[in-house]
């Protein structure tokens, strides 16, 4: 009987067959994605010459990094049971805001960045409050915000600067200060590693810490997994969700700065359409669309897979018109592998 083992917890439970540490590790949501990422890496390392070199890695790491930062933020939100379709447009919006404020209005560059951050966080706040207040699905609310931001990016910027892309950013005073933080790169083993890669790692680590080790992380899983239950046991649901929307807006600001100071320009359509790529990366990394399950590392790995596949196809020199088809097969393959690993883990003894 149950009470028989009370007080002797060290005794082996006859109701558990085996209990390998490996099995436990394999159950984490991101392990499947990790194995899939390794598979994609090996695949391209074998069939192309450049992919696995330092300079090759530099390229796909870079393209994965900005997507990865957003994917992690969006993954947090998805674990919390919500979507943010304005995340992509936000990256363009913040970049354009800084560009307009500095090149046109001559504002100090750091001040402009601060203003842009405040703007971004306010949009996130409005998103969150609207979702919680009206009870509308976040899919629709943030779609609205997305459209509005897209309109601002295009029409307002056009009105102010007369064209649809920021020009002459490098001539702005003190440009190289934020450039050093967001846009520079250092050479490691013959490949350039961009600042965005370090930011990506930082954001992923931070998000993982928050998710697994803090109260807020517990609340994020709870509001996404069963909102009513979470509310009933006293989780501050509204505050948690609004915070998540602000986080994803904040990440949008960060990526906006990375884009602006790496390429020294942003355009009106920057980030439009990317919002779904973030969601895709999160799902590839093991997040559930229905909320309550997933990991930050998984989302980062999802972005890595996406970035590697995207660049790997170019390295392989395959007919570029098939790009999307290859990408589709690759993603599907990665997710299938991911799923197979997880199932194996569940069956493992």
């Amino acid at each position, binding site marked *: 009987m*149950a*009470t*028989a*083992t*009370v007080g002797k*917890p060290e005794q082996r*439970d006859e*109701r*558990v067959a085996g209990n390998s540490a490996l099995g436990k590790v394999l159950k984490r949501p991101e392990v499947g994605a990790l194995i899939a990422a390794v598979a994609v890496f090996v695949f391209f390392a074998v069939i192309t010459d450049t992919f696995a070199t330092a300079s090759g890695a530099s390229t796909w790491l870079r393209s994965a990094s900005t997507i990865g930062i957003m994917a992690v933020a969006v993954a947090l939100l998805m674990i919390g049971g919500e979507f943010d379709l304005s995340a992509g447009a936000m990256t363009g919006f913040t970049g354009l805001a800084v560009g307009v404020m500095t090149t046109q209005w001559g504002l100090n560059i750091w001040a402009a960045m601060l203003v842009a951050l405040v703007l971004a966080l306010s949009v996130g706040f409005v998103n969150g409050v609207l979702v919680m207040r009206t009870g509308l699905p976040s899919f629709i609310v943030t779609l609205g915000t997305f459209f509005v931001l897209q309109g601002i990016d295009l029409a307002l910027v056009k009105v102010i600067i007369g064209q649809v892309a920021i020009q002459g950013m490098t001539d702005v005073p003190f440009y190289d200060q934020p450039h050093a933080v967001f846009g520079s790169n250092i050479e490691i083993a013959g490949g350039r590693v961009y600042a965005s890669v370090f930011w990506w790692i930082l954001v992923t680590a931070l998000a993982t*810490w928050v998710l697994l*080790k*803090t*109260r807020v*992380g*517990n*609340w994020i*899983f*709870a509001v996404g*997994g*069963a909102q*009513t*239950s*979470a*509310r*009933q*046991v*006293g*989780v*501050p*649901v509204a505050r948690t969700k609004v915070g998540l929307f602000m986080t994803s807006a904040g990440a949008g600001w960060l990526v906006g700065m990375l884009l602006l100071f790496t390429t020294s320009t942003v355009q009106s359509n920057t980030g439009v359409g990317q919002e779904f790529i973030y969601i895709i990366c999160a799902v590839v990394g093991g997040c559930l669309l229905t909320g*309550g*399950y997933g990991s930050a590392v998984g989302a980062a790995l999802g972005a890595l897979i996406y970035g590697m596949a995207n660049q790997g196809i170019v390295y392989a020199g395959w007919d570029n018109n098939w790009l999307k088809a290859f990408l589709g097969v690759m993603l599907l393959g990665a997710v299938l592998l991911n799923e197979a690993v997880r199932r194996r883990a569940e069956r493992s003894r």
Partner: protein
Amino acid sequence: MTTPIIEVTDIGKRYGNIIALADVTTAVHPGEVTCVLGDNGAGKSTFIKILAGAHEHTDGRLAVDGEERHFSSPREALALGIATVYQDLAVVPLMPVWRNFFLGSEPTKGRGPWKRLDVDFMKRTTKSELSQMGIDLRDVDQPIGTLSGGERQCVAIARAVYFGARVLILDEPTAALGVKQSGVVLRYIARARDRGLGVVFITHNPHHAYPVGDRFMLLRRGRSMGDYPKTEMSLHELTAAMAGGSELEALSHELAEELGRDSEVAKALESEVKELRT
């Protein structure tokens, strides 16, 4: 008598045009167990959800420590020391048992940016609190959705008992429990009462209600039929009241024939029928 912790006056709840509860007046006193009795759909869960802050009441007033309140979230009730076991348990199926146990009131260690969940303590406590209830979990890291119905209920109860500071509300806590686990829950209730907590206890089992209850409140079709102290009620009367209603004679007869006289249900119905005749 002591001043009540919670007092409700003519309280009511409507869902759209559905009246689930109307005109209920009662109070929860410290050191007293109030049993809420009633048929299925009588409004018991609705009543305790109002006390717990999970639903806002649409009519009447609710006062805690004499101060009128309109809970907009269970968090407010929890902050006042009111802990609840909901009938549907309020667990997050995909989360591990230990995270569910402490959800909403997580203990932390470290300071400033190093403030983090005290995972060790959380796991240890969960394991030990549950084994005190007679539940020996294989692994507190299991998602709570994979536990059996009774195991899940025990987690919800252990959690409420652990955090309940002044009032403990239990909605059919023993429904899915085995005999031994039920015994533990009844003992918890008795202990909480002795420690001076106010307890609200809902059950369909008169044998669970009678020994621990101090007062019995009867709901019928969303309305209160009155509030009886234990002194005014025998186990027999209680059982009859719980079976409730009329036209039971036929059922009682049938049952007695089909199941034999030893059936508890048949006996209860019979006794009520007798009472109605007198």
